[in-house]
């Protein structure tokens, strides 16, 4: 029976991990293009969850149906932040400026949320709320399953966009060589705005999915922001596939961990493994360098 629990935990972990993977991927994309670490990506997720909540509360929109709207709103919000704040503070010799900026922006956003919505938990029920399907004895929550499916589709769309569209090629070109991009006439500032916007939109999709079975509160971004940093560090900053695998891995680690050692020690386990990975990775890298 213990193996049954384990498989159940792994399945749940993969579904939780989908959110981490997506947020990590968006973080990665922004880093790849602008070489800035975006410390408010978790708060972007939080904002998108409140947007989903508002759409549910005032228009009665199901979180899953609201996804396109949330994605567009978040895209515009991200592009706005990029053009008004971040592009202006990028300096060529060092990124401390942007580091502090995104960090403060995160704190600012969660405090604005606290002011507007108080610290109460808010929920938005989806049409699949509390439904469960049973496959071979495993119970799978339907909202999580649908959410995971949407996350997979979103990931695939981002990949295709990067590979085949003109914008995607410009994003890749800018991330691989900014000077090369400028001398071929790519408007790098426009690419930056799009990239940050897409990053926010991805967080938006993740947020809307998460909202269908989770609740939102002003500091929810903290948990997910930290997780997404673990994900990109595990998968390698800049590697999209690494972020996907890292996200799923982290999710599985959490749920299996809480099955094995109890939910109270879940975070302890996660960070312990994270620290071990960091140390091991550094050692392996050092050996590689010779």
């Amino acid at each position, binding site marked *: 029976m213990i193996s049954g629990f384990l498989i159940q935990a792994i399945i749940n972990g993969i579904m939780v991990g989908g959110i981490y993977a997506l947020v990590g991927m968006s973080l990665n994309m922004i880093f790849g293009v602008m070489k800035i670490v975006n410390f408010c990506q978790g708060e972007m997720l939080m904002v998108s969850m409140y947007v989903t909540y508002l759409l549910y509360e005032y228009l009665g929109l199901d979180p899953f149906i609201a996804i396109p709207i949330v994605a567009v709103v978040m895209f515009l919000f991200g592009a706005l932040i990029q053009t008004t704040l971040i592009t202006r503070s990028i300096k060529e010799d060092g990124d401390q400026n942007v580091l502090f900026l995104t960090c403060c922006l995160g704190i600012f956003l969660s405090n604005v949320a606290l002011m507007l919505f108080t610290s109460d938990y808010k929920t938005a029920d989806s049409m699949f709320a509390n439904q469960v399907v049973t496959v071979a004895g495993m119970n799978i929550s339907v909202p999580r399953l649908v959410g995971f499916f949407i996350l997979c589709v979103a990931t695939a769309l981002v990949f295709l966009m990067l590979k085949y569209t003109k914008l995607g*090629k*410009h994003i*890749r*070109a800018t991330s*691989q*060589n900014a*000077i*090369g*991009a*400028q*001398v*071929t*006439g*790519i*408007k790098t500032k426009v690419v930056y705005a799009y990239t940050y916007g897409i990053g926010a939109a991805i967080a938006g999709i993740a947020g809307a999915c998460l909202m269908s079975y989770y609740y939102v509160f002003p500091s929810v971004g903290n948990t997910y922001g930290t997780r997404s940093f673990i994900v990109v560090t595990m998968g390698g900053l800049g590697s999209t596939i690494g972020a996907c695998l890292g996200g799923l891995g982290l999710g599985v680690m959490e749920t299996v961990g809480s099955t094995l050692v109890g939910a109270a020690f879940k975070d302890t386990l996660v960070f312990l493994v994270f620290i071990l990975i960091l140390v091991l990775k550094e050692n392996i890298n050092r050996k590689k360098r010779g």
Partner: protein
Amino acid sequence: MSGHYLEVDKINVKYGDIQVLWDASFYADKGEIVALVGSNGAGKSTTVKAVSGLVKISSGSVVFDGQHLEGGNCRKFIDHGIILCPEGRQLFPNMTVYENLETGACSKEAEAKKKETIADIFKWFPKLEERKNQMAGTLSGGEQQMVAFSRSMMGLPKVLLMDEPSLGLAPNIVDDIFRIAKKIAKENGLTIIVVEQDVRKALKFADRGYVLENGVISISGTSDELMGNEEIKKAYLGF
């Protein structure tokens, strides 16, 4: 103004507080190949970066085809047909050769003629056709320079600025690229401004040349005149 195709008048460039180019003036006519030569750090690269809009000029003017161009925005210069093939190639290493070329076609006109231009490029450099689906970062230095040159050509330049095309390459590959560039210049009226440390090679390739020393243009003349100049012989040609 005497009305040359490209007329650069007394430009000054500063990086922060440090001035690297003083009152540089030169011109180029349609279909002409002009070399800017000089030792390391003389300001040659800065000159072409200023003329292509990659760096801002603090004073002076760049007039192309009767139009006054302002620096700090590469795209505007590209839309006028002034394209820089940058030092160190600056390719996109994890994109294929074909994708690198595609990216070079940024104006509407260049995009519309993309297929024809690529066909031309593959005629000039058959090697690139063989390698079109290979990542640019996996090519040899010479092939990468071919891609960089071709990527600039994709933008349908009227003036091509080549910054140190010979850097780190085998001599015969550089000769190849220069031969093709010269052919395009003479047949299609492309103006080329080339920056080189290899003075002999540059003057053989160019019609005229300017010598830069410590941010100032000190000598100018036709390639033959410069090759015969005693000072240049001593300082750069080694005899």
